[in-house]
């Protein structure tokens, strides 16, 4: 254990499902390490009561967050705390998200450098590439990030990624930084827009489009996050399986009934849904029309070819279990 370079790990966004699984795997893989988990939300599940994990409810932009870095010598930081469009978040307006995601990310990176953290791992998303009709398949890490061309509400996602990548190159001699851009993560513990969309019966699907998707099971994503600690050098990596599935086929696998409507009506039906209950973010409609398939060659060149334990159809079926 003494040779383990990462003895104390900070996980930001600890109330999330993915952070919970990652913490468990880290503890199993590296017994004796200490994990501090922070979140602005209250803890979920019993992971935070596990031995070796300390949970703190904290605002990332407050002075107490800096104190956390000052009082602890973190060896590695996982930034899994990006605010999304989910209904769980109190701060759901675009301005708040933009503000918080950008300020929060910059602050985490600055504090990590200031307090001699050895490695920072940032969870971005494949959404940064945007779902556009003229996307080629297998977008590589150096493809332009076009997500916010049409939708300003995706600015925070793109800018957060850019802050992290600029930081990566600027400080590559001082601190190791890994930016991961995963495809859609699904699983019983994941409550993102896509899992809600997939599992809600009678949600609209485009009758006139059928985009292809890459789905990652939550366990596989958490395993890759864990391996990132030792096996991935500084850089930007897409995370996706080789397998793809069309959206309509995915709904069939899940056996969830859908409401097919032409895409031009989707905006209106979504507005109606907004008035009644939960609705899809405006930008998400393009992800229901056009594919955004990412290339995984760079990641495989570092971690090996067999990264995913769950096949797409298995991952979809399991994600239904709650």
């Amino acid at each position: 254990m003494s040779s383990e370079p990462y003895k104390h790990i900070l996980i930001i966004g600890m109330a999330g499902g993915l952070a919970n699984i990652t913490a468990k795997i880290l503890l199993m893989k590296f017994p004796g390490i200490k994990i501090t988990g922070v979140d602005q939300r209250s803890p979920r599940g019993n992971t935070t009561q596990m031995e070796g994990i300390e949970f703190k409810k904290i605002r990332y932009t407050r002075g107490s967050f800096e104190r956390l870095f000052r009082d602890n010598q973190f060896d590695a930081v996982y930034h899994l705390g990006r605010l999304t469009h989910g209904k769980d978040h109190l701060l759901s307006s675009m301005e708040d998200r933009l503000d918080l995601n950008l300020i929060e990310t910059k602050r985490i990176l600055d504090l990590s450098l200031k307090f001699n953290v050895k490695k920072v791992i940032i969870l971005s998303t494949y959404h940064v590439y945007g779902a556009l009709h003229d996307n080629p398949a297998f977008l590589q890490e150096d493809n332009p990030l076009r997500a916010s061309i049409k939708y300003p509400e995706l600015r925070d996602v793109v800018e957060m990624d850019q802050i992290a990548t600029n930081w990566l190159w600027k400080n590559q001699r001082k601190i190791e930084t890994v930016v991961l851009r995963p495809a859609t993560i699904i699983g019983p513990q994941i409550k993102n827009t896509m899992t809600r969309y997939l599992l809600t019966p009678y949600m609209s699907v485009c009758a006139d489009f059928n985009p292809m998707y890459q789905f990652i099971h939550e366990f596989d994503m958490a395993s890759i996050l864990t391996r990132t600690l030792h096996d991935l050098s500084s850089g930007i990596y897409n995370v996706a399986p080789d397998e793809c599935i069309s959206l309509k086929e995915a709904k069939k696998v899940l056996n969830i009934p859908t409401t097919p409507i032409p895409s031009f009506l989707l905006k209106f039906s979504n507005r109606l849904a907004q008035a009644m209950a939960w609705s899809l973010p405006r930008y998400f409609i393009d992800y229901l029309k056009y594919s955004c398939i990412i290339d995984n060659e760079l990641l495989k060149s570092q971690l090996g070819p067999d990264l995913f334990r769950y096949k797409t159809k298995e991952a979809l079926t399991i994600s239904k279990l709650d």
Partner: protein
Amino acid sequence: MVFKKLIKELGLNISEEQISEIMGHLQQRYPDGEDPWGLNLKQAESTLKVVWPLYKHYFKTRIFGQENVADEPYIIISNHSGQIAIDGMLISTAFASEIKPPRILRSMVDRFFTALPWIATAAAGGGAVLGDRQNGHNLLTRGQSILAFPEGVTGVAKSTKDYYELQKFTHGFLRMALSTRTKILPLAVVGCEEIFPWVYQAKGLSKFLGTPALPISPLYLPLPSPVDIHIGQPIELPEGLSADAPDREIEVYVQQVKKEIQYLIEQGLQKRRPFFANQKGNI
């Protein structure tokens, strides 16, 4: 449905044996039934069932030079004709139904096409992909054959006076071939120009309206012109030429491919079957 029923009643449909043989091969090739570019085997099967009667009985398509096609990936380069790109559909049908082993050609389509509701999804389901070099490279390195028309829209949208005259070729296909070391298979389609025999392309107006083409014709119904597909011998790639070579070096080999296709067209024109639209000597 009515069309399918009528075709079956008249006995013009593709035989069950043939379709199951084709789909058996394709199922082995695409075990998931889908691929990252949106290919959907079920969709491809139903498209083939609809298109085949048109291919065989309406356009009476013949294919020459099958022996030049081996079981390996190619960049298939063809002349473009027929105003509505029927040639792409017929070439794809030929390679799925008459070339052994059957294969789904990945036709490279223009950007505007991939945004069209229903049409884009149906085309992708049948194998079409966005005409993008990154896409082409990824397909070729995964053992797929692509079909490209280096004349682009200018090839398909010609006025009658320009029929069977090759337009300017773009260079992307040769760069893709060089970067993946994939052989080029030249191909000529003869008979598609006569499907719409009298056309004037209003280029100025089309530019003003922002449309890819604006054909003016007394006839907008595709005529049953007999179509011949001539497959040439694969063209070996020049040794030592880089995919990133300057345009002037690439152009030399692009011209060779163009000449080969022009030769195939001329041979094909001599063999074409009589059809009233090609009897007056103007096409």
